[in-house]
């Protein structure tokens, strides 16, 4: 039994250590927020994110004001292109991106692969490795980019994916912070229960 206790607590501590290490890269998320609001928002909505939410990832009031233009702080990030226009243009309404980082197998990693997955096809048309036949154009123009530009584009894809990961789960940091406290509390409580159990059961001998 003690062994089980030992293994489970080790597992928890490893988890805690692992997530403490992988805490979010704020500058990357902030750069990603700009790309999402300036580029992706042209076609995609991010309906569960409001402009004022961007303040919580450290964008300044001025930055947010520039991004929102005429819209108010409490407005969600709607797509600039109307759904009907998008449908006419692409034959599909571009999906909302707020949950995208949790809505595909692979999560943020999938988004990076998708955005950098465009390449020149055999017939001169651009294809996508990850999603053949995708109706989204090669937004960053990676299919035609030279190696230096490629590097830059890859970083952009990583940034926007980091932002979308935050957007899908804005509470993640708070959750893990709380989780660390909860696990330590329960671990101590469990140890006390164990000692108390030993003490009470000793009466039987």
């Amino acid at each position: 039994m003690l062994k089980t206790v030992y293994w489970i607590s080790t597992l928890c501590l490893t988890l805690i250590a692992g997530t403490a290490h992988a805490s979010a890269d704020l500058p990357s998320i902030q750069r990603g927020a700009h790309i999402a609001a300036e580029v992706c928002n042209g076609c995609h909505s991010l309906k569960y994110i409001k402009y004022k939410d961007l303040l919580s990832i450290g964008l300044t009031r001025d930055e947010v004001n520039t991004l929102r233009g005429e819209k108010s702080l409490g407005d969600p990030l709607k797509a600039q292109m109307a759904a009907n226009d998008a449908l006419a243009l692409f034959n599909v309404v571009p999906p909302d991106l707020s949950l995208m980082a949790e809505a595909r197998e692979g999560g943020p990693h999938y988004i990076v692969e998708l955005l950098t997955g465009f390449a020149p096809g055999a017939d001169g048309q651009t294809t996508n490795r990850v999603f053949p036949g995708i109706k989204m154009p090669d937004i960053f123009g990676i299919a035609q980019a030279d190696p230096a530009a490629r590097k830059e584009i890859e970083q952009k894809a990583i940034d926007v994916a980091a932002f979308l990961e935050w957007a899908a789960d804005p509470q993640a940091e708070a959750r893990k912070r709380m989780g660390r406290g909860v696990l330590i509390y329960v671990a101590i409580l469990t140890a006390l229960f164990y000692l108390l159990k030993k003490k009470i059961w000793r009466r039987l001998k």
Partner: protein
Amino acid sequence: MSKKIVAWIDQRFPLSAFVKHELTDYPTPRNLSYWWGFGFLAGFVLVIQLVTGVFLAMHYKADSNLAFDSIQHIMREVNYGWLIRYLHSTGASAFFIVIYTHMARTLYYGSYRRPRELLWWTGQLLLLLMMATAFMGYLLPWGQMSYWGATVITNLFSATPGFGEDIVVWLRGGFAVDDPTLTRFFSMHYLFPFIISAAVLIHLVALHTVRSSNPSGLNLADKDNIPFHPYYTIKDLFGLGIFLLGYFAIVFFKPDLFIDPANNVPANPMQTPADIVPEWYFLPFYAILRSVPDLAGGVVAMLVSVLIFAAMPYLDRSRITGGARYRPIYRTLFYVFVIDIFVLGYVGAHPPASLMKLTGQIATSIYFLTFLLLPFVSRWEEGRLLQSGKLPADVVDMARKEIEASHA
């Protein structure tokens, strides 16, 4: 003061007598291992689900146009809404882990045997109620997997001879899963836990009538029984602590572990997902369903695979107590069965390509074979063991008594 209050109550309601009879004096075998703690854990998870569920229902909107958004509202705007939701979504899986372990303990130690048949059957009823509740709850987030899972499962009822299609329409409240399905599933999902709570009470009454089984399988002498409180309250609390460590680790650090990515896409009746996979706790039964080429046959096989547990007191014809403990062949069957369930679960999670399909069919056959062979194997093993002279004397005594009783 408190003594006075208790005395006042005792004149009008048997409070002290109840506590004495069911807790402080309730005799419990002193040799129970931690495997006996899972019943308490199941009760605890039921309470978690009830409490978090009631709070979720305050913010959730059972409307096909609003349901998906209302979950995101809970996740993002409601104070600690994310916590309540993750406790509930992880709680569902925790519930099945605990209950399946509880069942495995019963099977291993033969706790379903006479005189505990009713205890086992009320447990079987609880399992069915839980499955129905979980299935209906899974529709509520109104994601792609919610929608298509409900579509596939309700469609199974079309296999009913004669009026299958009518039943499907009746269940869904229309020709397809839609708003009426969502509202009725929500209503039932809120109702069922209270039925479950009532069934738990019945389960406990049955338990306190026949008392706990114990790993030795023997009827213990009085001196080997100890009061439930404080000995098992503290032992169960320690077990609860261990359980909570694992549960909270998932709730806080990997809450999407049991959430299919496709369920973060709103339900879309026009677009079928690449493969429709039920929740992990249904996978073995789903694999059995798909292993039978014919729909009606598959549905029957699946139903039987869940209900057959109820027959255990009759399928196991050995009168040697202690379940697998003294019976090597029964023990082997038990482990084969457990491994087989994992294989079925794996098969259920994957598209039925040729090799996967064959594996599923073999595993399904093994599943039913273990039950079908049991009556013969158990009786044969009983005779062999009684002759072998290797069993402890008290086990032999008890078996002989039971054999005589069954002749009388």
